[in-house]
């Protein structure tokens, strides 16, 4: 069949047209959530009004925010889609490749939960004596979990019953680990930050020493926070770049919306 391209000059506006670029969200050191917009090297960070967040992750479509007692889900505009009671303390979050399905691991209780289609549901998983350092979703049925025992290992588990399908040894590591939805990992080895893609190809990221937190900000962006208080934005891809994320601009133009009652 012959392919026809239909084109009019009004298409750019009709399809959503032109907007200010949005990168995603970042968690500030004080627990507030910042919207990050702009382009590489020309960021604008704006307070969202969301505060008291102890852990966060953003896929570009969804944001998962852990306060001390609840887990919130926000959309890309910052509107709260869901808020549920959750085990106290921090959490680890991950997403599936679409960014629309999220996973939460609560270290305080050793519980895994999956957010899909507006609902949270528990998933069976027992890491044994190992510590969970990072989690992401490979697809709708499987999760990838980074475990720490004597060394790091990447474990693929089945969400339906928690069965371990595959284990990949990653070697010794210190510091935080981030598992991304495309299967790549960021971890530290010998003081250097390593980006390991899904094929196992590694490259060194130009991150300073002392990274204490790695968080997906949305799209190809990762937030890194150092023990010196610096907040960095890492642009992943074939040539990763590291930028400094500016402190929030004094004027806020993003307001949280759609807050819902906490479900128990």
């Amino acid at each position: 069949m012959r392919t026809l391209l239909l084109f009019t000059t009004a298409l750019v506006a009709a399809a959503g047209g032109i907007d200010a670029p949005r990168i995603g969200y970042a968690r500030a050191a004080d627990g507030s959530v910042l919207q990050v917009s702009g382009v590489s090297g020309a960021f604008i960070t704006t307070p969202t009004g969301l505060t008291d967040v102890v852990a966060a992750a953003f896929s570009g479509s969804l944001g998962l925010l852990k306060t001390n007692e609840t887990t919130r889900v926000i959309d890309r505009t910052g509107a709260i889609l869901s808020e549920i009671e959750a085990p106290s303390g921090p959490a680890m979050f991950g997403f599936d490749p679409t960014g629309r399905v999220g996973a939460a691991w609560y270290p305080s209780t050793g519980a895994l939960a999956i957010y899909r289609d507006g609902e949270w549901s528990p998933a069976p998983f027992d890491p044994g004596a190992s510590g969970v350092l990072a989690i992401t979703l490979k697809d709708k049925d499987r999760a990838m979990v980074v475990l720490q025992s004597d060394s790091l290992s990447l474990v693929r588990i089945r969400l339906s019953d928690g069965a371990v399908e595959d284990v990949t040894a990653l070697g010794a590591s210190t510091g935080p680990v981030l598992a991304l939805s495309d299967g790549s990992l960021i971890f530290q080895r010998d003081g250097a930050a390593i980006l390991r893609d899904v094929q196992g190809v590694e490259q060194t990221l130009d991150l300073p020493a002392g990274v204490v937190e790695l968080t997906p900000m949305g799209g190809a962006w990762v937030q890194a926070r150092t023990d010196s208080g610096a907040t960095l934005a890492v642009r992943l891809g074939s040539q990763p770049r590291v930028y400094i994320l500016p402190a929030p601009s004094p004027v806020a133009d993003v307001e949280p919306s759609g807050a819902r009652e906490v479900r128990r």
Partner: protein
Amino acid sequence: MMLRLMLIAAALPLAASAQLQLFLFDGTAEKAVSTVVDYGNVAIGDSSELRFRARNNTNASIALQTVSLGGQGFSISSAPTLPYIVAPSNYAEVRVRFSATMVATYSATLAVNEAQTLLRATAIAAAAISTPAAGVLTAGGTVDFGRVLSGQSASQTLTLSNPSTASPITIQSCSISGSAFTAQGLQCPMNIAAGASARVTVTFNPTAAGVLGGTIAFDSRTFLLSGVAYDPPLPKPAVKFSAPLTSGTQQKLVISLETVSQTSGAGTVTMTFQPASSNMTDDPAIQFVKTGSRRLSFTVKNGDSSATFPAGVDTTFQTGTTAGTITFEVVLGSADLKFDFPIAGAAIAVDSATAVRRTGALDVSITGFDNTGTAGRFSFTFYDSTGATVQPGAISADWTTVFTSYFKQSKSGGSFTMRASFPVSGDASTITAVDIQMSNSTGPTQVSRLSF
């Protein structure tokens, strides 16, 4: 006004036989004079002045008719114009100075109306004290050291000369006061032979800025020491960057100092931005990353050759995504300097681009920035799996109006995300890639081939 006051006073009843009473006033308090007022020893060449007050302690005005002084060495240095009406409870002041050129004892009678007192003074031989700058000083005179950098010093030599060709002079006691002043050669008793001289070097060595004073005394003669200490000026600042300024970059700013600083201080650097085009608004991405604002403080310490920011000797700022002029205003000490740095217009920069195939449509998204605000002309060329161009070939579009409208109200400078959707009739899966060319006033930008 004075005439009016005098007329009013004259209209008051005058006491027929009332007396004015004489008092000595030392600048603080009055003391009734006795029959003799002794000026004490006054060095030849010096002078001594006393303030007398003729006070009216009656209920009626008294006319001061006469003020007279009889005797050598004494002179009236200040007195009211006579006749002078002294109102009740008021007074008239008369100042009498003694100064002599020969060693002797002097006396004179001061008469104020009917009140009289005997004045007495002894002129003694003393060293003439001089400095090269001020010449011969009289007691109470000032040795002025002028303005001196704190931490540095200035000296003046006092020459103590014995003017007598026959008799030596002995200074029995001498002292210096004032924490910023020290003296060399100040040892008493100090004998100065006839016609000879001695030298005392006084050094002003301030450690902090301020107006500082002290005294140096030789027997009963005291001289004031005075100097002004000031901090050295902070050196002139200049700004340096890690690279020439272009849009869409994070740069490091260093504030260098013209000379090594000899003092400490604090300053501020403030950025302002003027877009090159009236089509563009201010660009909020132009900011210091440390503060998320356009203002940042820094400090300078003694010995520094550059300013120190909170994170070190440099600080990172963003150049934004709009062509124009970034001005850095640096305020340090008395310096308030502005440095303009133009950011030239450049071709559209692409941050990311995606191509997505949907059922019945092909979506293209481009995120980047146009720092000129003149983007709008696009060209899309689609390819099939064999690499052949899909007809009708390059599709041109002019979205300049849409882009212009966007940039005029942009709160993100020249950055943008553009989404375009191309409806497809037929098998869209045969289209596998697209080339995109876009242009602004400076020229075209080619986006690397995107695959669907």
